């Protein structure tokens, strides 16, 4: 598939900011099933952009802007060619051994209820089957929530709800997978939907299966990610893979406005 991506992130500040430093994880990388044909990051103010790579192997862009700034808008436009992969990753540059992804974070802390449920799903079946059952199970359990996720919500708390955003479902998957001994991570990226613009990029999960490698699981669909998914960044949880990590120097609050359009080119 040839996917065209437009992703606009706008911050508006209630008071002018003297300085802004942001770390953007907004650049997808090439792999066997994903080729970046065209990719641009545009910023609506004078800013310095520096390319780099973080410890997880993600491409990062440091953004430095001098104020006074009332706001900043980051616009991504790009085209990515994807191919069918059965969800198994090939040709992805891995910097860390899988066991690192058994670690917990505050948002993905071990949770007894999730672990008990995962153990039930995994009982008597091979790991890959167990992971597919967990993925389908999370999908079936929650009504979809297309709203903006609550950054404070942990997987354990999200488990008690009736609906889940893609982010929360993916974090629940990671907690469940780790509880049965499978290294698991959060993936941020894009997904092409028939629907129009969305208010957030997409998020799903990947788990490591011995002998097979990293496999993608999207609990939002209950299936493995397919041609319509574009992988951008991975980390232990959603915060770690967040498209924008920022720090600003100045008073006041900020208002965030995000618009994502992914379509077949």
């Amino acid at each position, binding site marked *: 598939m040839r996917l065209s991506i437009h992703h606009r992130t706008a911050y508006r500040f209630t008071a002018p900011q003297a*300085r802004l*430093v*942001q*770390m953007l994880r907004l650049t997808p990388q090439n792999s066997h099933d994903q080729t970046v044909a065209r990719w641009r990051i545009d910023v609506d103010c004078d800013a*310095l952009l*520096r390319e*780099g*790579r*973080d*410890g*997880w*192997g993600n491409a*990062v862009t*440091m953004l*430095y802007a*001098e104020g006074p700034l009332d706001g900043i808008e980051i616009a991504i436009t790009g085209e990515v060619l994807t191919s069918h992969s059965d969800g198994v990753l090939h040709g992805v540059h891995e*910097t*860390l*051994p899988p*066991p*690192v992804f*058994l*670690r917990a974070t505050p948002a993905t802390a071990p949770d007894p209820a999730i672990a008990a449920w995962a153990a039930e799903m995994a009982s008597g079946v091979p790991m890959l089957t167990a992971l597919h059952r967990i993925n389908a199970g999370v999908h079936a359990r929650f009504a979809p929530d297309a709203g903006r996720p609550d950054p404070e919500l942990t997987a354990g708390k999200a488990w008690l709800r009736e609906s889940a955003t893609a982010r929360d479902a993916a974090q629940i998957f990671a907690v469940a997978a780790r509880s049965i001994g499978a290294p698991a991570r959060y993936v941020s990226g894009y997904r092409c939907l028939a629907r129009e613009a969305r208010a957030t990029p997409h998020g799903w999960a990947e788990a490591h299966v011995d002998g097979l490698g990293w496999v993608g699981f999207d609990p939002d669909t209950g299936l493995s990610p397919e041609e319509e998914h574009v992988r951008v960044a991975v980390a232990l949880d959603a*915060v770690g893979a*967040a498209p924008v*990590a*920022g*720090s600003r120097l100045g008073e006041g609050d900020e208002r965030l406005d995000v618009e994502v359009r992914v379509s077949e080119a």
Partner: protein
Amino acid sequence: MGQDAFDEIMGTTGGPPPRAELAALGRWLSVTSDTELRRRQQSAEAAFRQLGITFAVYGDSDASERIIPFDIVPRVFLHDEWARLSEGLVQRVEAINAFLDDIYGERRILSEGVLPADLILSNPQFRPEIAGIRPPHGVWAHICGIDLVRTGPDDFFVLEDNARTPSGVSYMLENREAMLRLCPELFREFRVAAVDSYPDRLLEVMKSVAPHGVGAPTCVVLTPGHYNSAYYEHSFLADSMGIELVEAVDLVVDDDIVWMRTIAGRVKVDVIYRRVDDDFLDPLVFRPDSMLGVPGLIAAYAAGNVAIINAPGNGIADDKAIYSYMPDIVRFYSGGEAKLPNVETWRCREPEALKYVLDHLDEVVVKLVDGSGGYGMLVGPTASKAEIAAFRAALVAEPHRYIAQPTLALSTVPTMAERGLAPRHVDFRPFVLTGSKGVQVVPGGLTRVALREGSLVVNSSQGGGTKDSFVLMDDAAPMTQTIGGMTQSMGGGA
């Protein structure tokens, strides 16, 4: 157990006599009255109070007014003892640097099965966030404080490696200043190696690891601020190196370069001796919830534009869970056996070790692998029944969080106690510097002394004090001591 321990100056009852070189110290102690020693000690402590050499104890409200007690009787290392120790320290610190370079790079030590992979990969001290970054010149642990204990004339053991931000070097320097002023006769008697070059050596090390191509690097000390318990040391080091003492708010990162904000504008910073924890270095990388730190610092570091001393991520090298593998680590990287042995250690994560420890709780010392400063520690022989019971329960519940070691008969040194001189247990922290040109051991260090009779806990937060540590020089070596900037030559006249 004080009676059984090896006394470094008096020797052991029934054991071999003390080294002849130390007889002079024994004589000095016998001809100088207790009243006189006490007077000098009080004078030293008054000076420390005036200088504001203070430390804070957690939960103590008037903490900033406290000083660490100083003991006037020095601890002495003979020249040959020191030479052997130095060799062992250099070997160990070289291995620590090689280990860090490997563990954040190729991870050969894991792929070759020397260490269990999960011990590293699931350890919170292993920082995936900085994996793949190589510090300028490949140096990670620029300043190490290796805690040693001694149980006999030739028996030194490493108790703990400190490869993050070891503190205490200001005491080494201030204690020496005090001894030079108050007991000048000792420096005529003994040819003591000078320690006052430490700030210059440290600055040399800092400059040596500046990013490539920087001609005259700007170096700074980064402190969490004046509320920190070690603030005195931070300002002392910055002042004695003649460099700025900065806080996170003084630094900005722009275009992957670190700058400090001065009244004359931005000044580029090349080397940062940070005395803040990894967690508070860069909120974009380590603690997204934290408003502390310097946003972008790790990006500047990853881009090779700044050296951070010590390197972020070093905690994995001095973690108590890793400690018991240090002999294997030293062997793996140096190709030889460790010259400085570890204290025997039971890893409670291993069922057999756990069983042994539970059966001998009243004999061993149990430590939390993620604890420090003497907190979360059980000293079996002196613990109450209730304390032992509490540790037993904790060990059974979470064995992986604990290690245990035999209770060592730590050596003693005569110390000014309530009723005159008495033996007190000591440990020792030498400081080892690593720059681009290699490893050096500063001839001296921090001797900590447990002031309570029989106590083995030397931590300043638990009633420990400090002593000056003399390293005697080879007769052939030139001897100088500087006092307050003036150089005083000391001939062999005494």
